[in-house]
């Protein structure tokens, strides 16, 4: 087995298990704060069967993994790379840690490191993009620490919690990632 590429310090990335992950996704979505940090659409509830159908249908253009804690192999979240523009070598990153007790402890960050390595070293991408809501301060700090640069903000894009919020855009170039990782 050659799974080292998909393992980090705290987590490993694994292909989705339609049965297990669908149950978890349905349960995580009951946590509306999780959804409000993750998605700009209205929070919704899906049955495990709906989530399963979505997973099994798949999307040829995207790479979705479940995030397993190395310590106990528990599935704590998911990570996703999609919207890839192969000509420019750009892809969009999304990550969600559904299990609250794993928030703010570096699990998402470790998963992103693994995905960046995969994106740059195997997929030959040149940059990775993401967007994040202005109010998701924990995520913004995490992306900054990983070396993502601020690339701008769509002003007042979101209408939530009785006011408008910006959508922040961040990106990391392969050259920046390489420089950061060779100095560490």
């Amino acid at each position, binding site marked *: 087995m050659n799974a080292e590429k998909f393992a980090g310090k705290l987590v490993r990335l694994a292909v989705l298990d339609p049965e297990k992950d669908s149950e978890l996704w349905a349960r995580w979505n009951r946590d509306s704060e999780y959804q409000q940090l993750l998605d700009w659409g209205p929070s919704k509830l899906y049955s495990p069967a709906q989530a399963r159908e979505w997973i099994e249908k798949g999307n040829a253009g995207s790479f979705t993994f479940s995030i397993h804690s190395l310590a106990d192999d528990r599935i704590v979240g998911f990570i996703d790379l999609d919207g890839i523009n192969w*000509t*420019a070598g750009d892809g969009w990153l999304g990550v969600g840690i559904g299990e609250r007790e794993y928030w703010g402890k570096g699990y998402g960050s470790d998963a992103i490191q693994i995905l960046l390595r995969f994106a740059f070293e195997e997929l030959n991408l*040149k*940059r990775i993009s993401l967007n994040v809501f202005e109010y998701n301060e924990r995520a913004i700090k995490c992306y900054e620490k990983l070396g993502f640069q601020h690339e*701008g903000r*769509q*002003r007042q*894009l979101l*209408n939530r919690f009785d006011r408008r919020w910006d959508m922040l855009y961040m*990106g990391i170039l392969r050259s920046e990632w390489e420089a950061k990782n060779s100095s560490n």
Partner: protein
Amino acid sequence: MKLKPLFESQNLRLTSIDLDKDSQVIASWTYDLDIARRLREEPARPLPAFEVKKIYEKWQKEAEDNKQFLFAIRRRDDDAVLGVVRIAHIAWVHGAAFLDLILGSPQDWQACAREALELALRYAFDELSLFRVTAVVAEHNQAAKDLFHQAHFTLEVRQREAIYWNKRSWDKLWFGLLRPEWKMQQMAEVNA
């Protein structure tokens, strides 16, 4: 109350898309890869009319469900189709959408883009009551950058090297215009 017509301006009309006839014309524009890039995902390539027709068929269906809005831009004089404008990726909860303006030739862009944009913005803000619109432009497209600056859009996001065109990487630029900013302009024009 005097209502301004939504689909007419001095030289232009917004109309529905004639899938058979217009697809032929639009397909002929897609040798310009910057136009092709707006019709389907990368890699951009010239598209045959039957593929263009399929794309617009799908978009027309979505338009019937108010998921996006789609118009041909025609010259009033002779009804020739000069371009297409699309308001898409609408998030109704947030009153936000993307605006995509295509004109088939640089000459038509020069002559009509401003007028077509005015029509599109009036539709977006007055009819759809959106709060903001976003337009995504490639750094190398000087004419589009000029247009959105002239129309008082703000350059909000610069995704470095996110586009590949003509032998090198270019930034992807995101311009935004907010409803209050647009309203201010309308007032200024009325007062002028």
